[in-house]
């Protein structure tokens, strides 16, 4: 696909994700040809679709497809997925979330006692892009807020402490996206998911702070993104667990792999 085609695809996806979420979005994306896109152009499908899920705040059980595709299994199911802390979850299809279950109660995640191992690399890249998109969404909310809101007779955006928090957020997100772009093997994917999880949590912390009281209200959409970041970070291994795993691998190998080469 050339850049213009990808651009067009992204525009269509953004519209679709703005109009629908959950099972309805799942159905709309199936109609748009998501399964074929994933099968034929996974290197375009995964970054574009998952990043947009993050940016728009929509959700759909597409991670299942990515994992099943990587496992060479038929699309449409819902495999057990490893979660932080040695737990397992299933991302249900055709269901809505609901109160009382998961921290992000829009997501139809159900915990299950155990599961079978699944290939992780592609799913980690997908979640990484989703987390990066979620981080971008938070940064954009925070940026708009600090430009609009005036205190002490000046926009919040003129205070250096506020500016530096948002700069820090951008650095983390740009770094994570560079790691995602470079991820083309399982270890690179592990690292990219760790970087993206960390970046989304950095974004959550700084953006929450500069949004002040309004960002703490249920009406403001920040809290939805914060919840999403927290839940997605744990899926297929949290940034903390993955970082530790990377350290264990370095220790075992006795040297630091140079994954990207000129």
């Amino acid at each position, binding site marked *: 696909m050339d850049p213009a085609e990808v651009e067009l695809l992204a525009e269509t996806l953004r519209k679709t994700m703005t109009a629908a979420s959950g099972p309805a979005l799942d159905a709309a994306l199936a109609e748009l040809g998501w399964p074929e896109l994933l099968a034929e152009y996974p290197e375009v499908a995964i970054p574009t679709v998952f990043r947009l899920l993050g940016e728009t705040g929509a959700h759909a059980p597409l991670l299942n497809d990515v994992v099943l595709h990587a496992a060479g299994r038929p699309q449409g199911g819902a495999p057990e997925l490893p979660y932080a802390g040695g737990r397992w979850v299933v991302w249900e299809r055709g269901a809505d979330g609901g109160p009382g279950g998961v921290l992000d109660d829009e997501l139809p995640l159900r915990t299950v006692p155990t599961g079978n191992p699944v290939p992780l690399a592609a799913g980690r890249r997908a979640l990484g892009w989703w987390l990066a998109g979620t981080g971008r969404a938070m940064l954009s909310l925070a*940026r708009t807020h*600090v*430009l609009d809101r005036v205190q002490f007779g000046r*926009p919040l*955006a*003129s*205070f*250096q402490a506020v*500016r*530096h928090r*948002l*700069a*820090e957020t*951008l*650095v983390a997100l*740009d*770094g*994570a996206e*560079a*790691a995602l*772009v*470079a991820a083309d093997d399982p270890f690179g994917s592990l*690292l990219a998911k*760790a*970087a993206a999880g*960390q970046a989304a949590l950095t974004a959550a912390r700084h953006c929450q702070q500069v949004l002040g009281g309004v960002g703490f209200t249920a009406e403001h959409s920040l809290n939805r993104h914060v919840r999403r970041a927290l839940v997605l970070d744990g899926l297929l291994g949290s940034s*903390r667990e*993955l*970082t*530790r*795993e*990377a*350290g*264990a691998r*370095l*220790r*075992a*190998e*006795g*040297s*630091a792999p*140079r*994954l*990207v080469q*000129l």
Partner: protein
Amino acid sequence: MNAFTTVAEFRSALRTWLDDHDLSPGPDHSLDAQVAQLGRVRRELYDAGWMRYGWPAEVGGLAGPAVFRAVLGEEVATRGLAEPGIYSMVEVLTPTMISYARPELAAEMVPLLLGGREQWCQGFSEPGSGSDLASLTTRAVPHGDTWEISGQKVWTSLAQYATRCVLLTRTAPGHDGITAFFVDMDTPGITVRPLRTMHGVDEFAEVFFDDVVVPADRMLGRPGDGWRLAMDLLPHERSTCFWHRIAHLYTRLDRLLDETDERNETDDAALGAAYLALHTVRCRSHATQRRLAEGARLGPETSVDKVLLATAEQQLFDTVRDLLPGVLELTDTPWRSEYLYAKAATIYGGTAEIQRNIIARRLLDLGRE
């Protein structure tokens, strides 16, 4: 010498050559020895052609893509042939000469630098002008076809070894009143006083200018171009130089892994975090190299590379101290000096705060402070 068409070909031929030509430094780690070693490495690499790839023929180069310079620097750093900070100074000085010096001057001088015959320095900062570089006050006054320069520079790296200096002076008020010169360091009226540094390698100096007479044809660009020159060199510093430095930091992480107990799981989180930060900046720098290769003009987005690198460097050396308790405090080890030097990573080349100011203003478009 063959003309190389791909990075892989270039790298593999370079590696073969380096395997056959041992340029390893001797046991002396003094700054004098480091600078002498740097000269030796540059000379050998220049004479064999390697140092000339990626530079245009007008300044003695053998052409080819700039990425060859990143590959060369990575090999030099990975093999520990020269101290990467001072090795990479050519990446800033040479593009400045190509863009701003008279073509004949650049053609005459650049081979002396690339070929290890000379060291040069960069006289920008002054006692009263660090982050606020545009406030600099070292004056240059025209006298016929010469200029007379008076003032003081500080923190000038390698000034005590330098034959020439790329010097910023004031010729009129404001940003447009800054003018750059290419000054011979043996000109009467220049006094260099080396400064002690915190890490024990006295790499920078104070430089005093007392009525120093410089020919007008040593001006870089035109009167008032100095600010633009200073801004233009930042992207150079943040592309190829950074790739070299990152390669160097990987060697230090390797060394740390050598020295830690491979059965001790308790350090995994810290090792992983240090590695993740390094991997992240390597990926970012890789993307920057690629954009450069595609002909992009690098700009304020390289402040992101700078923050990632400085943060990763300090995190790495903090991890060294944590994982090797007592080593750098109580023993005679190269870690001590390197640990201390890492403290400067958030100061030189534009402080961490200045980078965040740039990101907020230029990348996030947050308006003025």
